[in-house]
């Protein structure tokens, strides 16, 4: 496997302080490798966005990072902890190394500035020496890259369609050629045709530019198609992580399996859909033990009491996958 570019270690994120805190992300460790698309799935409220924003300390109050590290490996440099950076350093780090494409593009663009301003703003902040002219040229270039004619430079966000706005955001994310691009449900607001267009484009760009992507969605079938590896989140934890095809064929965690069985297939034989019984957990009153156990059809003794650790399953010999489930207890790493 190729080199890691971003390592998340034991990240914990709370909303609020003290007893009332909601533990939205618990003890998450995850590694993103250079050039790969890492899919992050899980139902609503499982902490996907929180994890993504937590990486670069962008959570709004009352979000607090209560522990963990985010180690960034710059190309040919010494790795460092993003969470430990000073404000100034962090500002420099942002966008230049990791860029984020948010869920709603309309809300991500400042409605009162032209998109050219918003594009060049980044350059002005990160490459102050660049000339006005070069900046403009670069912004135009990016727009062309994402398939928007450069003469739309002077348009305001509201003058663009949803798809175009989302493309502008993607272009903006790539303008500094970052190593990591985080995409939080970049296409949920769009319809399928547009979604496919944009994702197709993104994959192509990734091949050309070589950045890594963390791709968040709850549409598992989309993820399976588009990502290299998939991590499934439930109740603030990662419950399974494996290459996309592996998960699709053979999900180990009952939750992942249930998730996959919830999507009707368009092609192939009509299969019976099982779904997952029960409703998502409340983060404030998380069940003890494996948080999925109240809904799990296969729950047994240890599930309600002990939290399973995420690790390569001991009973199977499939490389590059890990799961947190007592059905497949983790290999003891000693």
């Amino acid at each position, binding site marked *: 496997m190729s080199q890691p570019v971003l390592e998340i270690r034991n990240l914990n994120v709370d909303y609020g302080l003290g007893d009332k805190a909601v533990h939205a992300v618990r003890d998450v460790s995850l590694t993103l490798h250079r050039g790969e698309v890492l899919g992050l799935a899980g*139902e609503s409220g499982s902490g996907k966005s929180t994890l993504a924003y937590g990486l670069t300390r962008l959570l709004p109050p009352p979000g607090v990072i209560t522990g963990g590290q985010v180690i960034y490996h710059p190309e040919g440099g010494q790795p460092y902890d993003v969470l430990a950076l000073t404000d100034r350093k962090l500002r420099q780090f942002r966008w230049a190394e990791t860029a984020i494409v948010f869920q709603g593009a309309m809300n991500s663009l400042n409605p009162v500035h032209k998109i050219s301003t918003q594009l060049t703003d980044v350059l002005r902040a990160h490459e102050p020496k660049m000339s006005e002219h070069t900046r403009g040229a670069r912004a135009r270039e990016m727009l062309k890259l994402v398939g928007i004619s450069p003469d739309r430079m002077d348009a305001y966000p509201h003058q663009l369609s949803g798809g175009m706005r989302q493309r502008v955001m993607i272009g903006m994310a790539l303008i500094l050629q970052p190593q990591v691009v985080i995409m939080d449900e970049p296409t949920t607001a769009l319809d399928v045709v547009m979604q*496919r*267009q944009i994702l197709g484009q993104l994959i192509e760009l990734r091949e050309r530019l070589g950045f890594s992507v963390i791709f968040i969605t709850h549409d*598992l079938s989309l993820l399976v198609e*588009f990502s290299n590896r998939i991590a499934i989140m439930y109740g603030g934890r990662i419950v399974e992580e494996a290459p996309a095809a592996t998960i699709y064929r053979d999900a180990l965690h009952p939750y992942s399996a249930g998730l996959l069985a919830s*999507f009707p297939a368009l092609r192939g034989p009509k299969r019976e859909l099982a779904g997952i*019984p029960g*409703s998502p957990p409340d983060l404030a009153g998380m069940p003890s033990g494996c948080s999925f156990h109240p809904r799990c059809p296969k729950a047994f003794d240890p599930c309600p009491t002990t939290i399973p650790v995420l690790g390569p399953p001991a009973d199977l010999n499939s490389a590059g996958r890990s799961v947190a489930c007592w059905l497949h207890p983790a290999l003891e790493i000693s």
Partner: protein
Amino acid sequence: MTSTKAPSGEVVLEAVGLTKHFPVRRRLRQIFRKEHEAVHAVDDVNLTLRRGQVVALVGESGSGKSTVARLLAQLYPRTDGDIRLHGVSTRVKGGRPFREYAARVQMIFQDPFASLNPVHTIRYHLTRALKIHGNAENLDAALHDLLTRVSLTPPERYLDKFPHELSGGQRQRVAIARALGARPEALLADEPVSMLDVSIRLGVLNLLRDLKERLNLAILYITHDIASARYFADQTLVMYAGRMVEGGDSETVTQTPAHPYTKLLIDSAPDPDRLIADIDPLEEDRGNGEPPSLIRPPSGCRFHPRCPSAMPRCSTDLPVPLQIGDTPGHWAACWLYDSPEVAS
């Protein structure tokens, strides 16, 4: 519920040439001009809801699906066409006739988080639905019955809760229960699961299917997820920019789509079986892969500007529904299937 079991397949609600144009407010300087600008949200839509059947209406965002539902629920006055309830043309605006209509045709909204009033309990919501339609003779029993019907058991646990105390799926069930409170014959479900979590969608859809079978309801299922239409509906209609472009048996439409738009839709749907490597190359029509303006819809076939197999005729002549192949009831409004064209 005591409704006598009507024969399955009986036509309940029918739309004939249903049309809705939302007037665009005229500018002052246009005040003297004759023509009125309007959003052609729905044009000439025909659809039939039968007892014990689910008709799916699919199409991209803004294609007019919700408008069709609201027209059928008589929440909007229609511009043209006809809505027939058991073959009788109806047009109701308010008051008693509306309530009588509502007793037979009920609508379920897309967003269960928004369609229940946060200040009222479940009991209030359901009681109102029952009372308005005079189904409240034995209120407690009726309430229990409703909640049981939508699998919210035991009913006592839910009756005095506020919407916010329920999960999305439970709320949508309450919304369905409310619609059932009127003892309707037809249910118009406008994207009933798109706001729900993946893991609970299925439960709601299964419930709807179950109700259809048990109560012999006619259901219009609106969605943009064509896969769920295949799974859930007996018939599927595809809508594009305010017009129906294809219709037929769900399995046929999804497996052998005829209209280029349906094809595009199906090709675009995520498919886990496809591998990351063989993603289609970037399409040519990137820039205009967007739905057309409905104020000035393209002439002829509304899809022609995006259509890969557009012919000159497409931009001038409005396609008529044409029978496709030999599957009965499968049609598409596309000149590709006009016999002379096919012949040539």
